[in-house]
Each structure stands twice: as C-alpha cells, then as structure tokens.
C-alpha cells in the first residue's frame, strides 16, 4: 500500500466553506456585492469617484469634466443596451462598431453632398442600421452560423462598404447636422439624455414585456424555449435588428456631436461594450444580464477612462485596462457559478 493511501483519516470542516448565514457583517456585504451586480458596480463607481475627488480635486470634480464623462458614456451606453439584450439571448454582435460608422457616414453624405434634410438623413441612417441587423439576423438564424463568426465577417463587410462610399468620411457636415449631438439640457448634452431614456425604457421592457422576456428563456436553454413554444429564431432575429438599429443611432449621435462622420468611428468599441455588459451581469453563455447593470458598467468604464486621462496615463494603456476589467468581470462570473453549487 502506498504511503498516501494509508494515512489515517480525520476530516475537519474547512474554515472557508462555512455556512453563509454565520458570516460576519463584512462578509454579508461582500455576499450582497457578489450577488447583486448593480450594488457591486455602485460601490465601485463610488470608490473610484471618491478616490479621484480626493486625489485630483477640481480637476475631476467640475461640471465640464463630469458632463464629458456622461457624454462619453452615451455612445457606449446605447450600444450596450442592444448588446446586453442579445447576450441575454445567448448571441453576440461584433459588427456594431462598423454599423455605427456606416450609419453616420450615410447620413453625413446625404446631408453634406445631397443637401437632404437632416431628419430624413437620420432616418435613413437608422434604416441602414436596421438593414445591417436584418443581414446579421438572417445569417445567424437561417444559415445557422455562429453569431460570433457571422458578425466578425459582417464587421469587415460593413466597414468596407463605409470606406467604399466615403473614403475616409465626411467632415464639417453643416446644415444643422450637429444640433442633436451638441445641444444640451441641464448642462449635459442630448446624447446622454437619449441614452438615459433608452436605458429606462429597456429596463422596463426587459423586466416586464412579454417579447423581451423571451430572450432570457432562449439564452437559458434554447431547446427548452423552442419546446415551450417560443419562436427563438424570430426573437433572435429581432434582437439583431434592434442591436444594429441602436448602433446606427449611436453612430448618428456621434457624427452629429462631432459634425463629422469618420470611417474610424466606433473602432474597437466592441471591447468596451462587451466589457460593460459582462460587468453588468450578462453571462457569455446567455440567460442572464440586466440593463441597469449594463448602464452602471458603462458609467464605470467611462469614469475609469476619464480617471486614466486625468492621471495622464497614455491612451494605449486604457485599452489594456479595459481588457483587464473584462477578464476580471468574466472571472467573477466563474467564481459566482462556483459559489452557487
């Protein structure tokens, strides 16, 4: 008999695995933070905000800077709403950055080169986004191609189309194109308020509406959802149309704010958006996620980037930080599932 097998057994309860109810108050706060993403994110935002306020004072706490944090959050926020809904349904869309750029360019060209009125041009931009969503949705639900691969491909295609029709893009569009992106209300620009309104709307819809509840079932167990009479293909298809239309809206707002539609708009935004969605509780395997969580995730990332800028961290490091945050967020998903056992 080997040495290992003859050792006498004595099993002591492992301290770390004690019953949850006899945890210290601190432990319970920790539990709550791990259980509820919005609470955790709220705490993170508070900690980061306090740190910045103490260390950098008015360089951080001033109207212009805070308004710019929120404005930064507008684009990512609108994109994250759509992405979160799609991820709840177990799908993903990587083409949103390209759709964002394409929609802005189409509207920009219509206004600048063809003097079409701004409202019509913006509607056309939204329509372009919807069409991109239809294409993504058809590829995924009809050709049964994995969403990650399908939208990786269309990401290249849409950006290519944008480049063909505009070269590098349109600058100084004029004709009142910038009104929507540059006007403000309560010292914060419209894009933020539009994003905030959409957050409230989709928070309500994802928790209450019959249509949007279906995403949770599909992401939770696609086959079980289908056998429960849910038309998962149609729902996921609609999800792609929604996410791309929202991406187009984000693109129009971005172009309007800059009065320019440029080809590089939205490059790499997927990283930020997926990170925010995952931070907010969306699981990569589908079935979970929340719009309020995703919203706080977006705010946290916007604030983190602002903090890095104020702390004079070179811009390339920001991407590294966001990447690390994504890995940290995904690993908490794993830890959470282990705790749940």
């Amino acid at each position, binding site marked *: *008999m*080997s040495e*290992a*097998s*003859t*050792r*006498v*057994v004595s*099993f*002591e*309860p492992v301290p770390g*695995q004690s*019953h*949850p109810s006899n945890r210290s108050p601190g432990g319970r706060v920790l539990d709550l933070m791990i259980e509820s993403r919005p609470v955790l994110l709220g705490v993170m935002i508070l900690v980061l905000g306090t740190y910045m306020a103490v260390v950098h004072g008015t360089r951080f706490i001033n109207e212009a800077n805070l308004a710019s944090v929120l404005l930064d959050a507008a684009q990512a926020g609108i994109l994250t709403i759509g992405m979160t809904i799609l991820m709840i349904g177990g799908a993903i869309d990587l083409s949103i950055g390209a759709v964002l750029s394409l929609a802005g360019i189409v509207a920009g060209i219509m206004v600048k080169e063809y003097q079409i009125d701004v409202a019509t041009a913006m509607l056309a931009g939204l329509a372009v986004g919807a069409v991109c969503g239809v294409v993504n949705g058809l590829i995924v639900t009809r050709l049964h191609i994995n969403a990650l691969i399908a939208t990786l491909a269309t990401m290249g295609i849409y950006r290519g189309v944008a480049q063909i029709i505009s070269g590098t893009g349109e600058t100084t569009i004029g004709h009142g194109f910038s009104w929507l992106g540059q006007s403000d209300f309560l010292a914060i620009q419209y894009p933020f308020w539009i994003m905030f309104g959409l957050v409230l709307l989709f928070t309500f819809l994802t928790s*209450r*509406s*019959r*249509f949007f*509840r*279906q995403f*949770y*079932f599909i992401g*939770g*167990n696609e*086959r*079980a*959802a*289908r*056998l*429960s*009479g*849910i*038309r998962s293909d149609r729902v996921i298809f609609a999800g792609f149309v929604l996410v791309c239309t929202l991406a187009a809206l984000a693109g129009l707002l971005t172009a309007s704010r800059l009065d320019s539609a440029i080809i590089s708009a939205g490059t790499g935004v997927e990283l930020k958006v997926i990170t925010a969605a995952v931070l907010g509780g969306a699981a990569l395997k589908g*079935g*979970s996620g929340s719009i309020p969580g995703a919203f706080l995730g977006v705010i946290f990332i916007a604030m983190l980037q602002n903090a890095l800028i104020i702390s004079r961290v070179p811009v390339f490091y920001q991407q590294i930080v966001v990447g690390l945050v994504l890995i940290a967020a995904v690993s908490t998903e794993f830890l959470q599932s282990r705790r749940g*056992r």
Partner: protein
Amino acid sequence: MSAPAAEQSHAPRLRVTGIDKRFPGVHALKGVDLEVMPGEIHALVGENGAGKSTLMNIIAGVLRPDEGTILLDGEAVDILDERTATTLGIGMVHQEQALVPRLSVAENIFGGHPPVDRLRVIDRSTMLRESKALLVRLQSTIDPRRRVESLSPAQRQTVEIAKALAQPLRLLILDEPTAALTLTETRHLFQVTRQLADEGVAILFVSHRLVEVFQIASRVTVLKDGALTGVRATAAITTDDLIQLMVGRELSFDRDRRRVPPDAPVALEVRDLVAPPIEHVSLSVRRGEIVCLAGLVGAGRTELVEAIFGDRRVESGRILIDGQPVQHRSPRDAVASGIAMVPEERKESGLFLDMSVEQNMAAANLDLLSTHGLVSRERLARLADSFIKSLRIATPDRRRKIVYLSGGNQQKALLARWLMREPPILIVDEPTRGVDVGAKAEIYRILRGLAEQGTALLVVSSDLLEVLSIAHRIVVLSEGTVAGSLDAADADETTILRLAAPRSLETQGVAA
C-alpha cells in the same frame, strides 16, 4: 469463486463509518455507514436527494467528507481525489459517462497512463492488445480502435467498466447503470457484473429500479434524507418493505381499473405518419384516455411524439385534432392547436436550470400571463403558488432556482408549466425517469387526475410497471412501426416485451 471467495467471510472490502457531509444549507449525509464484502453485489437505494450520489462521490474521491472514516480491506484510507481512488482500486461508472468521445476505445481505457516503451512513446500495439483482452473479459466484441463517439450507450458503458478494470480493481461503483440500456443490454450487464463479483470484486450498485435491485444484489443499504434507514438482505424483504424504508410511508402501484367510456371522442389521431425513423404509424387517443407508448430504446417513441409536437419533420401522413387535420411546423404550432409536451431529457430540453421555479413555469405561458404585451407578475405568482400547492412541489418558495429541486419536483414543475394552459392533449415522454419513488406515485396521481378531467394523454415510458399501472391502452412500437396495441386490462409484461422485440433480433434468437 476459489481463493477470493474464501476470504469473503472475514474482512469487508469497504467499510465506511460515520460519514458526515454538509453543503451550504443542506446536511447531505448524517453519519452514514456502509459495508460491502469482497465478491458481494451491494445495492444502494434511496429517493433523489437521499444522499446516494454524495456518498458515492465521497467513496470515489470526487468529494471529501466532513467527518468519518473509510476502511478498504481493513486499512484506513484517505481518498484525496479521483486519482487516489483509482490507485486504490476503486472504479466508478458514472451516470453521465466520463469518456472522451473523439478518442479511441483503447485510449479511453488507458486514460492518462498508457503503456509506453523504453523511449516513453506510447506502445500502441500493447495498448490495443490489452484493451482487447479487457473487453473480451467483459464478453464484448468492440474493436478497441473505434472512436467512442461511434458507440452505443451500452458499449460506452462496457468501455467504462473496462477502464476501471485496467487497474487492479477492488471495488466497482455502478451509478444508475441501466438507465440508458435496453433489456437485452441490461441482462448482459448483469451477467458481467456477476462475473466480476465472482472474481472477488466488490460491487456497489446504485439504481432507482427496485426490480433490478432484487435481481442482482444480495444486500441493500437504504438512505433517506441523508441518514441510514436500514441494511437488508434482498432475499428477506419485499419491494413494499424496501419502498417503505425509502419513503417512510406505504405506497401502492395498483392498476387503474377505471375504463374510458367507449364513446369518448377521439382528441388526437395520427394516420399513416412517416417521419424517419417513424414509418407509417397510426394511433389515436380519446379524451380522458391514457395511451402509453411502450417499446425498446430506439424503437422511435420519442421521435414519434416529437413529430406530433412539430419538433421533427413529417414526410407524409396526417395528424388530426378533434377530427380536424393540422400541420405542425414548429412546437409553437402544436401548442397553438392545444398540445403540450413534457420532453424526455429534463435538463437538456425542459428546464431553465438557472431560473426560478416560477419562471420555469412561465416559459410556455407568456401569452396567457400578459396583457397588452406586459407580463403580469401578480398573475404568475398566483398561478405558480397554486400549482406548487396543488401538485405538492417541494420548494421553499416559487423564487427558488429550479436546479436546487429534486428530479421529481423538477418534473412536477414542468407539468405545471403545461397544466397552466389546460391543454386538451398532453404528451409526457418518460414521466418518471430519474424520479424517486414518492414523487413517482404523485406524478401518477396527477396524470390520472388529468385523464379523469378529460385530458387526452399520450405517455412514452420504458418502465413496464409504470405502463401497466397508468395506461388505459398500450401501443407498442418496434423499429419505427406499431407492433401492436393492447387494452391495458389484457396486457402483461411478457406480451409487451414480445411485441417490442425487433424482428431482426427475434430471428437471431431463433437461429441461436
């Protein structure tokens, strides 16, 4: 037989004493003892949640106990992990099989320790030869070069046993080994199990099928709610005694003698349906009638109900509901025409494991629960609570994640999902698979109650006792066609089995 049998008398092969294990919120094992002699086939039974799996997993090194001792051939052992268990000669054949599908049989059998030559290169010929020898010992003709993914469930199980035998084996744990097997395969498994026992291996046999416990085991240990309720010699007790030890109350599986009025209208009719592997099947179910689809695994029963439910393409033939022809292109169409189906694979096709009990019930009922496109939480809460009560679903509350419920309660929740719709036609595929005895009786009560209220029920079941106890009529499928239809009053196990046997196999039997 010879030398090992002589040793049998003195020391137990496995002696487990005072095993205690807690999980957050659950006291899974409360000071449990278990003893298995060399050469003994010892059954371990208990309802779902009784602690069988936890105990097995502790013995196999998957989990570690909080307290207690494990003696193997009289020596105290500390089973740190699965690897240690293997080195000690403890093998386990898992319910969810633990083989690598893309690798060959031989590679799976030798796992992480293939035979190597002097240069530490894998010695393929030795590996194949030894695999072959192990398989022959198990009376199997599987080619060790085949990939595991190409094997049937029974063949995979044989490979798992061979894998356990690749080490000097002292104790073999079989966890629900017959769940995926046909009757012939089960018989073969039992033969092999007895042979291993004769060679001196101690066998721990875990099964829900009490009939099998009596067939194969000499002694049985019963657990209930994590505690030991008895150790008995199978020769000295009856099934009823055993059930009573398991559930602590008396249960009966009497046949339902009530007849369906012969003039009850036909609710569901299938005419000449072709949906490969289904070939020209016709059958009908009247209101208030329970029709059971019996047959062997692979006879096409699940495929038939899938076709009726719109989950499998129908090539030709008709489906009529209340005499009207319908076409189901998706399950949604079937639901719209009043059919509900509880599928066979509960986890894969039925449950939303990460969701609450009430959300699981809501899945098929978003339309009923909504006004102007908004889901009413109050209505859902009210309905969920009333079903939890009426179906006696054991859950702390409706918000509990369904994954924490026992198999029987999960199944009841799935029934509730469909009963909310009050469907005129209900299909249930294997209503009590992986469900404990107590919940079984309750599910039968529910199904009978539905029939009394006029629901037409089509039930797929591999459990003959179940078929005989709930069916009004039994339709036996074999190789995708109807082999016979019996009135439950005239049916018995032999008749059903004779009808179920595939023609090809029967001729083989005659030839041999």
